[in-house]
């Protein structure tokens, strides 16, 4: 076969995107302006109309960070530990059980009623029980977060496996792949894009569950800090807590997206 119709093949493998990467694009500049306007509005409003008691000014907020630095770091770490470890346990178990359920119908029959029973219950509703059983330490919070992530990931995994195009599985079978090989080399990569979506939902849910359980009973953590601050009407500390949670949740999501984009770099995307 002649190669000329393929053009300069080595070059053709690259990206189609040849736009220069600048530090700040037009779109980026617009977003920065939005943020600046919001901060200006915030300053103006808290200077005049809004009482500190209800919403702190930017200066108060920054000052409180300086004042609480040490305890802030330790609370932040406590919360992050619960979120990350709980989420990982839940997600890994969820994917594992989802795959096992599609692998074997008996495993499916055993686990399906358990999952169907668990799924409709909002995990937050279980917090009182968990405090009763495990106290206000880490254990209960980890289990709770794990359960939340587990349910999301098990359902996502099962649904994703169901929708793997049969043509890939047939092709693998004609080429001699065993069932185990098909799971490893076809099903797992094929469901990865969907799983990444599930993990992003799990991240958001895990933050919500950890904060909620810290509200209800804890001795550390950002949720605990917000709860204390509410009792003493320290709105600036509440806001600092909220902002830190927002930023970290965004960063964790961002990391998941970066790892996810790498793992699914083969997937055609509509940009």
């Amino acid at each position, binding site marked *: 076969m002649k190669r000329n119709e393929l053009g300069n093949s080595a070059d053709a493998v690259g990206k189609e995107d040849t736009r220069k990467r600048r530090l700040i694009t037009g779109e980026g500049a617009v977003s920065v302006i939005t943020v600046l306007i919001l901060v200006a509005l915030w300053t103006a409003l808290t200077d005049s109309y809004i009482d500190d008691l209800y919403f702190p000014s930017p200066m108060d907020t920054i000052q409180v960070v300086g004042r609480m630095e040490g305890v802030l770091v330790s609370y932040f770490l406590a919360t992050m530990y619960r979120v990350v470890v709980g989420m990982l346990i839940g997600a890994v178990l969820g994917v594992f059980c989802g795959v096992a359920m599609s692998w074997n119908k008996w495993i499916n029959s055993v686990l399906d009623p358990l999952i169907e029973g668990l799924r409709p219950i909002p995990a937050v509703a279980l917090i009182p029980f968990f405090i009763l059983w495990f106290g206000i330490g880490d254990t209960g919070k980890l289990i709770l977060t794990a359960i939340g992530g587990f349910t999301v990931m098990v359902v996502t995994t099962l649904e994703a496996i169901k929708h793997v195009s049969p043509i890939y599985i047939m092709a693998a079978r*004609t080429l001699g792949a065993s069932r185990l090989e098909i799971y490893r080399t*076809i099903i797992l990569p094929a469901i990865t894009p969907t799983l990444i979506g599930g993990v992003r939902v799990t991240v958001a849910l895990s933050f919500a569950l950890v904060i909620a359980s810290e509200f209800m009973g804890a001795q550390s953590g950002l949720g605990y800090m917000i709860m204390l601050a509410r009792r003493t009407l320290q709105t600036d500390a509440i806001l600092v807590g909220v902002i830190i949670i927002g930023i970290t949740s965004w960063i964790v999501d961002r990391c998941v997206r970066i790892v996810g984009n790498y793992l699914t770099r083969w997937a055609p995307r509509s940009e």
Partner: protein
Amino acid sequence: MSAYISIADISKSFAGTAGRIDALQNVNLDVPAGEFLCLVGPSGCGKSTLVFIIAGLVKASSGEVRVAGKPVVEPDPDRTMVFQGDAVFPWMTVAQNIGYGLRFGAMSKKEQGKTVSQLVDLVGLTGFADAFPKELSGGMKKRVDLARAYATNPTVLLMDEPFGALDAITKEKMQVDLMRLSVTDTGQRRTIVFVTHDLEEAIFLADRVAVMTPRPGTIEVVLDVPFPRPREASIRLSTEFQALRGQIRELLVSEEEES
């Protein structure tokens, strides 16, 4: 003439959403070793279904397929397939796709790599070994698919409208390549069942053309294609070629009118 693939009384019905569909009814066909057989027939007559049954991917409702004397119960890398749709694994590079069937064999990693890079060149994808399928055109993906099916050096190749979506010129090139690749490493001719709706393609490639009836599909006639090999692209213009094409076309048209 010993039958390498023997299809005996194959019937297949599906429980579709709109009730039972009889896709195939009493299909009988023998394909001798080394034959290139083309299967033509109206859309929906069960060509893909028949090929899936030969591959061992679909179970027949009744009847039996034997390959080399053994009943087909499951797929085998000695009997590979090129699908009608796009079956190239999007998460694997071109080289990984082509080498997929070799992973499960006895070949060493080094040999696998050598075979794969030979195949990459053979199907004209030099320089694309590490590209993902999303970076390839439709025709290039089909070539990956072909190379993957050749890689295990099968004695039987099942091809379901492999060139259906290609333009005329690319198609001709791929047909010429296919003729070249239709021998195994040991110089033996592969036994090929090739589904197509392009009659010129069928006659150009085949030793025999099997014409199927509309659903429920069965073999209506099997015609010999007498042209010697190697065949030049220009034989398409000969009167014998066109006469045969006309004959098959008449068969398909009269089927259409009957149904």
